[in-house]
């Protein structure tokens, strides 16, 4: 809920006559809100050739020939004449703009012109400088109290020890203290408040829960989710990125490194696995897998999201406007937007396999089992026919196979052209694809002439680790990863088509639909039918095309391949070979074995290999060999989504898009940073890494301010700059500019250490104030802009659930790993496309910290959205803090809160102390404080009342507790009390 919308007290001095005019504070907001839309940076939308955001332009004559502003001469300044005009045709802003300015504003402009119409640069675009803080004073308090005193206020006294312990614990680790931690702290605090508090803060900063708490803040910006979004919204695996964030924050990785690794970790020299995982930041964009979409269109949307997110996260600027046109208010051009995109737009987006010792050791075990089974295989041969034992059958097989083994010679590609993606010739003569795929991809290959006659051409579809699903196809959305569908395979010589007589394939299967797929259908002239190898991704397959007429030796062969269906699915790795033997057929056998078949005589180990192949493929042993094959299957590693910069010979061009539309690309735009900010170093490479380093340069006036402001906003409920997402002209001015700048400079000076920054702020007296306002502070600081007291702030969704789990003794502190499915009603995901089922985790995963909850974009976890958590569909800088009846229903009736109340009820019922003691325990666990006499009385009365009803049988204890044991009456009574406490405003509020 937004609380107030009044203009800030400091925004305009009460008496202008006394105070000097400040351009940024008093003048620019008027110009920006009322004039820049037509007379600002946007050249396209500019009226009357007049530009008012730059002084030298404003002093020139506009289209009318009149001088807009003549410094010191109000009567000669057209701007002043027009704003005071009574003629509707002359009046500025024009009435149809629906942005009238007040008389007070008119007078400000008039006075400003009279005083010389001086412009000063926007504060946020000027590098911050730290003013000196007197020694022995906490810098935060120094700046805050200076302002308080100016307003005739004093800071509020320090909060009590219980409140402090809960507040700072919730802020730093997202959890309240246990009663034992609380009591220990209170005791120590009584002895020495300063020392006790600092050491308590240090403990919290060292807790692994710190990383989890602050990771959740960061994941809002990163728009993290566990699904792809849009209609299908299928699961994706990017939790290793989430774990990377937790780990980095716990290690207090300097924020500049933290940023550079996420934007361009893959490009760092000798990039580590972790640095590559970090690039998941910009892989958190959505992926549309709806049937029939244009993948390039949604890649473009992902790119605009990356620009917006990168800009909001690090620059605090609203770049979205400039997707369509030059910014109406801020000095950012349409072209600069695409210039920033160009930095980020030169990467491919592969999956990364992560090493996994568990999978490896399991695989090793499987291979051993497979080897043992293989040894037993000959004994399984059905020996009912004495003349057909395994040995004789092998001899027969060998003879047959040798007879149909032909020699293949690789056709080396001379040229490999495509409509879009890059085919790179590999040392073995195969071609490896990379880059963007489309729904209709065509490869045109020119192959080196061969010295033999060609009677058949073999196409091998090959796996590769760089491809989605390890290939052989490049499908990465909608269809299975690694899928391909070849609609046409055409051979020409000298421009004339070569007829294909027959075709065979080693394997074929259609992923979608019931229609047949095979190699022959790829030469039938209909691109809607063809060859596909669904189900066996990451394996080698082949198709052999026998020509109707042989191609004479020395001829240059051209092959055209067409791919695609309602999703993009070209082959990603393949090889073409030729034979002069017309016997050629496709077979499912590795090359080394084929080579052995070509040998006239075999050594024993060689024979052994063929023997094993024979046994494994003999129909007589199909059941047994399937077991062996399954055991031999490659281990499946967890994957994560990363960035991979494109090779130098295949840069992706970036274009300016007219009106921001995908279908309207105009001129190509090179990488360029915003001209209003610090310059891009001349020697630096114009790529993603160069951009990341430029962004984290200490010269950057915005980033350190934006970051410290966001930390402040998290701790105090509002930023020093209230518009945490907008540091541009339309953003609000900082309430404490000197403090903001001091913190920004200090943040860099302390090596961009987040933990030091957090410690600095939470150890201030400002942070430790009470929440209770005085009458004077309510009068002089109604919105608490001056921080004359500590603000009460509602807890974030995840913190509410986590605090409840902790109070109930249920919280499972396990760090990291794949996301989990805590219980929620089935109906939450009822609306999700494709009959998605939410299968609630059982056991300990039910009670993991909330940031590990599986995050489904189109049907997010209901409890979290009810408390304003984001869906992960776009970058969220600041969460709302609403207050609704649905929240009340959730806390009262939701399954997880019910389980929590039951668990806590059981704990309390199990204690053998008197009720008052138990109620104190309850308050300590839930509210981190003791009840006062009134509260104790009210709570005691409630439990007596409920006990009576339970004993009389009016209430069914077993239903309330979910347990049917004898002593459940007590557990039920305490469940009801615990439930009531979880519903207090105080429980879900940081006080």
């Amino acid at each position: 809920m937004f609380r107030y919308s009044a203009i800030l007290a400091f925004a305009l001095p009460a008496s202008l006559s006394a105070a000097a005019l400040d351009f940024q504070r008093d003048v620019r907001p008027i110009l920006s809100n009322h004039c820049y839309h037509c007379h600002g940076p946007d050249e396209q939308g500019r009226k009357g050739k007049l530009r008012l955001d730059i002084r030298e332009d404003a002093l020139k004559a506009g289209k009318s020939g009149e001088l807009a502003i003549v410094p010191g001469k109000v009567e000669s300044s057209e701007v002043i004449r027009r704003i005071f005009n009574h003629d509707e045709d002359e009046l500025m802003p024009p009435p149809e703009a629906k942005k009238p300015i007040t008389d007070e504003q008119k007078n400000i402009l008039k006075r400003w012109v009279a005083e010389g119409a001086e412009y000063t640069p926007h504060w946020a675009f000027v590098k911050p400088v730290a003013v000196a803080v007197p020694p022995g004073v906490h810098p935060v308090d120094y700046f805050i109290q200076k302002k308080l005193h100016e307003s005739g206020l004093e800071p509020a006294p320090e909060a009590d020890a219980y409140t402090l312990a809960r507040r700072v614990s919730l802020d730093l680790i997202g959890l309240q203290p246990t009663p034992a931690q609380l009591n220990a702290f209170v005791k120590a605090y009584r002895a020495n408040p300063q020392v006790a508090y600092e050491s308590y803060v240090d403990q919290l900063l060292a807790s692994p829960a710190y990383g989890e708490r602050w990771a959740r803040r960061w994941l809002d910006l990163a728009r993290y989710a566990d699904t792809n979004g849009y209609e299908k919204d299928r699961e994706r695996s990017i939790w290793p990125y989430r774990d990377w964030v937790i780990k980095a924050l716990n290690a207090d990785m300097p924020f500049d490194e933290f940023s550079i690794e996420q934007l361009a970790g893959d490009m760092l020299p000798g990039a580590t696995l972790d640095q590559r995982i970090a690039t998941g930041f910009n892989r958190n964009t959505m992926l549309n897998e709806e049937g029939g979409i244009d993948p390039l269109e949604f890649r473009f949307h992902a790119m605009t999201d990356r620009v917006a997110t990168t800009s909001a996260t690090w620059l605090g600027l609203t770049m979205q406007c400039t997707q369509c046109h030059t910014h109406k208010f801020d000095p950012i051009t349409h072209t600069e937007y695409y210039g920033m995109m160009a930095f980020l737009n030169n990467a491919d987006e592969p999956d990364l396999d992560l090493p996994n010792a568990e999978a490896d050791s399991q695989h090793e075990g499987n291979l051993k089992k497979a080897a043992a089974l293989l040894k037993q295989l000959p004994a399984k041969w059905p020996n009912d026919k004495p003349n057909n034992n395994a040995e004789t059958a092998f001899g027969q097989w060998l003879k047959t196979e040798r007879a149909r083994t032909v020699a293949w010679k690789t056709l080396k590609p001379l040229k490999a052209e495509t409509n879009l993606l890059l085919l790179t010739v590999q040392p073995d003569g195969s071609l490896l694809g990379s880059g963007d795929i489309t729904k209709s991809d065509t490869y045109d290959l020119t192959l080196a002439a061969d010295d033999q006659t060609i009677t058949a051409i073999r196409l091998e579809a090959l796996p590769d680790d760089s491809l989605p699903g390890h290939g052989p196809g490049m499908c990465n959305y909608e269809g299975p990863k690694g899928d391909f569908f070849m609609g046409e395979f055409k051979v020409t010589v000298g421009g004339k088509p070569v007829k294909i007589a027959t075709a065979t394939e080693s394997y074929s299967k259609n992923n979608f639909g019931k229609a047949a797929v095979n190699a022959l259908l790829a030469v039938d002239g209909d691109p809607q039918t063809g060859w596909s190898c669904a189900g066996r991704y990451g394996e080698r397959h082949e198709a052999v095309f026998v020509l109707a007429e042989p191609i004479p030796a020395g001829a240059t062969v051209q092959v055209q391949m067409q791919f695609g269906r309602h999703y993009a699915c070209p082959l990603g790795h393949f090889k073409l070979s030729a034979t002069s033997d017309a016997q050629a057929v496709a077979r499912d056998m590795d090359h080394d074995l084929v080579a052995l078949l070509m040998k006239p005589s075999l050594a024993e180990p060689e024979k052994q290999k063929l023997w094993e192949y024979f046994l494994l493929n003999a129909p007589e042993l199909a059941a047994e060999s399937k077991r062996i094959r399954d055991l031999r299957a490659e281990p499946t590693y967890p994957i994560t989504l990363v960035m991979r910069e494109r090779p130098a010979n295949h840069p992706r061009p970036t274009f300016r898009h007219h009106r921001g539309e995908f279908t309207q690309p105009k001129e190509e735009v090179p990488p360029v940073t915003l001209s209003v900010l610090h310059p891009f170093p001349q020697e630096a490479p114009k790529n993603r890494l160069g951009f990341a380093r430029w962004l984290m340069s200490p010269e950057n006036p915005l980033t350190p301010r934006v970051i410290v402001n966001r930390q402040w906003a998290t701790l105090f409920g509002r930023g020093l700059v209230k518009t945490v997402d907008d540091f541009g002209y339309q953003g609000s001015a900082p309430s404490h500019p000197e403090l903001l700048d001091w913190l920004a400079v200090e943040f860099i000076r302390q090596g961009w250490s987040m933990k030091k920054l957090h410690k600095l702020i939470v150890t201030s007296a400002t942070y430790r104030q009470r929440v209770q306002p005085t009458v004077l502070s309510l009068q002089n600081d109604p919105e608490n802009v001056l921080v004359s007291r500590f603000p009460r702030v509602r807890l974030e969704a995840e913190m509410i659930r986590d605090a409840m789990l902790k109070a109930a003794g249920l919280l499972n502190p396990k760090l990291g790993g794949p996301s989990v499915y805590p219980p929620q009603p089935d109906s939450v995901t009822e609306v999700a496309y494709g009959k998605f089922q939410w299968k609630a985790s059982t056991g300990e995963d039910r009670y993991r910290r909330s940031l590990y909850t599986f995050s489904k974009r189109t049907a997010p976890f209901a409890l979290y959205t009810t408390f304003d958590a984001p869906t992960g569909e776009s970058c969220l800088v600041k969460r709302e803090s609403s207050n609704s009846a649905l929240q009340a229903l959730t806390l009262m009736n939701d399954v997880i809160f019910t389980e929590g109340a039951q668990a806590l009820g059981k704990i309390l019922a199990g204690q053998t102390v008197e009720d008052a003691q138990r109620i104190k325990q309850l308050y300590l666990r839930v509210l981190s404080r003791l009840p006062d006499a009134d509260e104790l009385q009210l709570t005691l009365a409630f439990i007596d009342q409920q006990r009576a009803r339970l004993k009389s049988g009016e209430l069914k204890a077993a239903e309330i507790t979910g347990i049917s044991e004898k002593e459940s009456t007590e557990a039920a009574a305490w469940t009801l009390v615990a439930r009531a406490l979880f519903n207090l405003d105080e429980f879900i509020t940081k006080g």
Partner: protein
Amino acid sequence: MLSSPTFYSRRHFLRDCTYGLGKVAAAGLLTDSLAQAASSNPLSARGPHFAPKAKRVIHLFMAGAPSQLETFDPKPMLTKYEGRPIPPEIIGGQRYAFIRPDAAALGPRFKFAQHGESGAWISEVMPHIAQVADELCIVRSVKTDQFNHAPAQIFFQTGFGQPGRPCMGSWALYGLGSESQNLPAFVVMSTGSGLSGGTALMSSGFLPTIYNGVRFRNSGDPILNVSSPAGIDARAQRDTLDLVSQLNQKRLGAVGDPEIATRIASYEMAFRMQTSAPELTDLKSESKETLEMYGCDPDKPSYARACLLARRMIERGVRFVNIYHEGWDAHSNVEGNVRKNCGETDQASAALVKDLKQRGLLDDTLVVWGGEFGRTPMVETNPALGRALGRDHHPQAFTIWMAGGGVKGGQTIGATDELGFNVIEDPVHVHDVQATMLHLLGFDHERLIYHTQGRDYRLTDVHGNVVKKILA
């Protein structure tokens, strides 16, 4: 607004006020904080720009995109062209989801006739809607920017093809506030298998989350968590609320934060919802005639039941109702698809219009029927996908209808070319539909704005014109 916590007396406050303000100052603080709680309540009415014609909206969203060529836009020429490709100069550069642009034309699968005094063309597959033809303003010339389901649905609801912006219901609530003391003001129902656009279709986007659409669910509690947990009867719930309220009031006294007053009010509203939601969904009080008119089995979730519930909701002060009926995505067998979906929706859609009319509610309730785009005049056939005689997505032209509050019924607006490919008369862009709906609710779509992310946003982005012909 939410009901103010009147039970919280001045006497209580002064007693609980423990942090040392003077009594007089404290009394003033109490008044202020309660007043602030009320004035800052985002669900209190902001007020329209001019007198609204419609006070409530029921939007029947036919998700998946119904074929206009089988329902409201008769194209006999298509039968003549059947089997032949549509000339490339008509197709232009349009991209398609599944078909190739040279696919052949497919004639309409149903017969059309004129209905009502207005002589509206409606196909035989909608016999019930045909009976209310004179209430409808049929718009045959709607166009959209998006040709895939999720983006197009999100576009229709939020004016933008990507998730993240507020939907129409949220804008309406933002502008008009809530009239209901015991039910959510913006309710969303769905009758089918899942929505392509997901929760983005009912999201408040960057508006405060309090404007989110609240889903009425087909299974379990109609509103999530509206039932108390097992074993907790009404009295135990009331007792609990009383304790919670007393303790919250003490806290309010101790810290003087008006947010606590709002919290207390939220709990009272939640408690009322616990009674009003089951009352709403209990259809026992509906007559047999009414149930039959809708074709509604009171115990089974269905489109008909959702329509009847929608009427009950607006009777109880709900402001905006979305009903999604999924399943219109006829890539194959468009005839069977339209027949099935009309079988599930035609009677109830018509019944809703009739029922509202006979209860005098139609005058100030806007009913809108339609999908996210249209379907191609060309056939979709694809043996590899096992598809035949279907129609692909068609953003260039589709049909919706509107009825009720402020709408001039008994007319058909707009026309498409003889093949039904492009609009040739009175084009109505989705942004125009949105501008018109807001207009009927009393808003100038250019002035219903919200400032965020450095600029003003509105439902119609930077587009949209009110379609005057639609207005009564």
